[in-house]
């Protein structure tokens, strides 16, 4: 059940591990796309009718932590990605089974007595693992105390099922993925039929038929290979202009090998050409169960403007393919790595065969607000939102309100990428497989999840997806719990973070800049408080909203009349998180503190929460470094670094070793990483 609650975020494998079917190649899949969409919409409507009245679901939430499996070769001083996912998962599954019989060595760990064993899941990369808690967390504050120790336990359990020299590392990306050397073990040559990448082999991806098909169909739909160009970080000795020296212009295995000869690799950029460069990234995602659909829709809207802020605050991705780059986060690289848009959809060719120009990748910031909230002004919506009007009409005809119908009709402008022919024989309205085919390959930074049709005890859920994984479990717990507390503050104070959704899209771009957390400003709403909607004390018994009648002495300006542009401004992340110095913006942390002061929290919990909030407060004001900054400084200070942007095998080995040490010692007593965890050496 839990797996269904959090669902595997990026690639939806968790639910889909099934008897192998026949996955359709792109030309075939394209022919069946309409059918899948139509059936998906019918399943959605059936499910929506069943579930729209679900009420009083408790807050349950879950975090997902993703790991790279890195093998350290201490003799050769090399760190390599280990493609051991399948073996590790098999061993973990065996252990989970014996756990249930009560004779697993894991169940001997007294500290976790009474806790469900964690769950592990495959991910796109064969060097990745994903772990979720054994059962969802509640809001009992004692539960919040267990999150960090559970994350540590997950890491321990994962480690126990690896070879002695393998380590679960929570870096977003492996610094030398796609280089010329043997950065994977076992080693495979690049240039396989599915990815057709000159940097990574097909074997880099999970061999389950879904993944090679997904990668191949994205490439095939696009009409060319994935094309990622990340600006190089220009150091003193970086060649000017920088021409990615790892690009091979003389390869002739596949038609796509022409891409680089036609200018795919840009000057001053690191060039990458496969889905694995994006989908091989690790993220920290949080899923919440809402009380009912209305609350879920509200949380979806209110958390959306926080996405870019938390992305910049968790920045941890300064290296790609062995080079320091000039961006700090993974987001756009994943967006580009699964971008299946054709040249027509991208606007590079006039529309002839395709239906729309589409401004964003399937993996991008979200473009809709869905709450039936009187505070949602139509000016906040994207006027250029692409919507499949036929699908919207069937949803509206089926009884769905305009806002929600628009949301799903927007998601359904995409094609389904992986279709199994066996699934097209009969439509089952008690399932959600066709709906999920589209829903879960729309990787937006927020996701609104209807209850699974076959699970009566699960309600409407919202997933917050923008955060980067952090190197230590302390940080991952801190950010997870912070977001949970923010949702409680949003609901308790009825906070309003609405800004025009295009500003959130711009913020998402802004978050990519190097050191954006301190050097950039982000659009944010100036006043998060809702006006008093009614005044039960009014002696004339008025039921509200007339508080601004002209007869008053000092009528407050009605916020509904002011132009939308006056409602928000550019703010620093420190102001957004900690509050502005002049007190005009309260700050997310003070809001959370006020929430905590309004509930009964025991001393021990409050102290842990204080240390988590302290981390976030100090990240925002620059006292503590982001992961990205720490990695940059580590490379810069390394004796093997030549100020030429190159992160060599030796530096990579030392970096991974340091990160592994950091997850154990967490920067205590001046150990490695104190600059991003503690801010002082002792």
């Amino acid at each position, binding site marked *: 059940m839990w797996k269904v609650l959090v669902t595997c975020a990026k690639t939806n494998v968790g639910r889909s591990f099934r008897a192998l079917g026949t996955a359709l190649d792109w030309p075939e899949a394209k022919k069946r796309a309409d059918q899948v969409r139509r059936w998906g919409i019918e399943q959605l409507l059936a499910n929506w009718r069943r579930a729209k009245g679900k009420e009083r679901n408790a807050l349950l939430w879950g975090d997902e932590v993703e790991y790279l499996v890195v093998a350290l070769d201490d003799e050769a001083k090399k760190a390599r990605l280990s493609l051991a996912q399948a073996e590790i998962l098999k061993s973990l599954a065996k252990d989970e089974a014996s756990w249930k019989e009560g004779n697993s060595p894991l169940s001997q760990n007294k500290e976790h007595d009474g806790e469900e064993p964690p769950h592990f899941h495959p991910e796109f990369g064969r060097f990745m693992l994903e772990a979720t808690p054994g059962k969802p967390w*509640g809001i009992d504050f004692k539960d919040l105390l267990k999150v960090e120790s559970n994350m540590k336990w997950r890491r321990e359990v994962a480690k126990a099922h690896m070879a002695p020299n393998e380590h679960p590392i929570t870096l977003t990306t492996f610094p030398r993925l796609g280089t010329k050397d043997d950065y994977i073990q076992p080693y495979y040559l690049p240039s396989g039929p599915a990815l057709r990448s000159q940097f990574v082999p097909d074997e880099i991806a999970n061999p389950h038929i879904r993944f090679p098909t997904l990668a191949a169909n994205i490439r095939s739909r696009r009409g060319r290979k994935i094309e990622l160009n990340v600006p190089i970080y220009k150091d003193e000795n970086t060649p000017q202009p920088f021409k990615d020296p790892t690009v091979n212009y003389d390869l002739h295995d596949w038609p796509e090998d022409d891409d680089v000869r036609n200018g795919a690799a840009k000057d001053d950029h690191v060039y990458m050409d496969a889905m694995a460069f994006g989908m091989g990234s690790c993220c920290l995602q949080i899923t919440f169960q809402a009380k009912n659909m209305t609350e879920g829709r509200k949380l979806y809207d209110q958390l959306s403007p926080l996405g870019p802020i938390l992305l910049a605050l968790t920045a941890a991705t300064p290296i790609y393919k062995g080079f320091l780059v000039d961006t700090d986060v993974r987001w756009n690289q994943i967006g580009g790595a699964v971008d299946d848009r054709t040249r027509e959809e991208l606007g590079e060719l006039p529309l002839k065969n395709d239906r729309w120009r589409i401004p964003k990748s399937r993996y991008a910031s979200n473009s809709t607000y869905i709450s039936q909230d009187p505070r949602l002004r139509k000016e906040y919506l994207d006027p250029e939102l692409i919507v499949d009007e036929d699908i919207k009409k069937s949803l509206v005809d089926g009884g769905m309100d305009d806002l929600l119908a628009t949301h799903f009709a927007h998601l359904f402008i995409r094609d389904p990428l992986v279709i199994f022919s066996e699934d097209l024989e009969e439509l089952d309205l008690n399932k959600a497989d066709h709906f999920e085919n589209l829903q879960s390959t729309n990787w937006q930074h927020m996701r609104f999840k209807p209850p699974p049709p076959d699970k009566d005890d699960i309600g409407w859920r919202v997933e917050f997806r923008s955060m980067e994984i952090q190197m230590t479990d302390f940080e991952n717990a801190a950010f997870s719990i912070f977001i949970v507390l923010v949702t409680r503050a949003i*609901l308790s*104070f009825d906070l309003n973070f609405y800004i025009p959704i295009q500003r959130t899209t711009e913020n998402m771009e802004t978050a990519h800049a190097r050191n954006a957390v301190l050097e950039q400003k982000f659009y944010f709403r100036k006043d998060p408080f*809702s006006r008093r909607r009614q005044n039960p*004390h009014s002696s004339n018994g008025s039921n509200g909203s007339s508080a601004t009648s002209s007869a008053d002495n000092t009528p407050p300006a009605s916020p509904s009349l002011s132009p939308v542009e006056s409602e928000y401004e550019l703010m620093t992340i420190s102001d957004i998180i900690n509050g502005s110095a002049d007190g005009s913006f309260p700050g997310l942390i*003070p809001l959370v503190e006020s929430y905590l002061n*309004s509930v*009964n*929290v*025991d001393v021990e919990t409050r102290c842990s929460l204080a240390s988590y909030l302290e981390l976030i407060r100090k990240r925002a004001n620059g006292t503590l470094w982001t992961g990205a900054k720490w990695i940059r400084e580590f490379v810069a200070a390394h004796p093997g670094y030549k100020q030429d942007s190159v992160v060599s095998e030796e530096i990579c080995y030392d970096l991974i070793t340091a990160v592994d040490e950091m997850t154990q010692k967490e920067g205590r007593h001046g150990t490695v990483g104190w600059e991003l965890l503690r801010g002082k050496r002792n």
Partner: protein
Amino acid sequence: MKLILSTSNIMISGETVIRHLTEKSNVELINSLRANFQAAQQSAPPKDPTITTTTTTTPYPSWTTLHNDALYIPTTTFTHGLSEDRPQYDITVKLFYLPGIPASRRCAHTREAIDLVLKELHVSSIDLLIVSFPGILFDADDDSEEEEEEEEEEKEEGSSDTGSEEPDDFDSMIQTWRTLEELQSAGMIAQLGVAEFGSERLARFLPHTTVKPSVDQINLKDCCVVPKSLILYARQEKIQLLTHNDCMDVLPVGTTRELLGPGDRGAGILASSPEMQDGVAGDVEPQWVVKYTAVVKDRGVVENKGYFALADVGSCVQERSG
């Protein structure tokens, strides 16, 4: 005459509960009272144009209600209960007995305060009542020297406000506790709690109780410096240590006068001077403050939080103790 001050649900107006680091911790109460007064004034019916007045304040009779010799500021209709069934909520009430008010009045004060909360939330019982006795600080032996000094300073600060700060005597605390135990056995309160008790005071207190406090609420200025002895003792006695950040003297006389008085910052309830007929005449003396919160249990959402405060006013305010 009694003045019954109320904030209504402060979660709705939000901004009054955000405290900036420089501000005193009773700012939530004061700001939300002020905000609620202003909101009531603004939605009061327009002034009678035949009445000419130099003040810009809305005359208080239009937004307050006099009932049984109690002036409700503002008018409180008690029309909004909780939105879900009672079992969904955890209702916590904290009652502040104010400094200088004789302990003999606490029995009546407690009932008065609880009744108002029950009426406001439309419920028949509360889950936890925490009482805060005036002038209590952590037992000295529990704290480091440094903290003792801080407390001394705070004590002085407090006493400068009221001029009557003194530790509550032990017997009257026991006396008060009897009242609470009665309310508990009558089913009105599920659990009882105290605030700011150190381990020594707890150890002295417990033998005198029939119903043990299940909660001891302490103010953590700098988190994680809870005396070990208190942690151990609380664990042994199965008393939960909870945190709060209320201040010791939540509603000083001076503040009350400013809040209700004439002038820019006041609500225009009190007369501007003894001779003037522009408001309620006499001295004002706050008696107690009660804070209530209703939290939806399994979602951790604070649905309703507010305060009531009661002050006596008149020319013959009862004798203060001491």
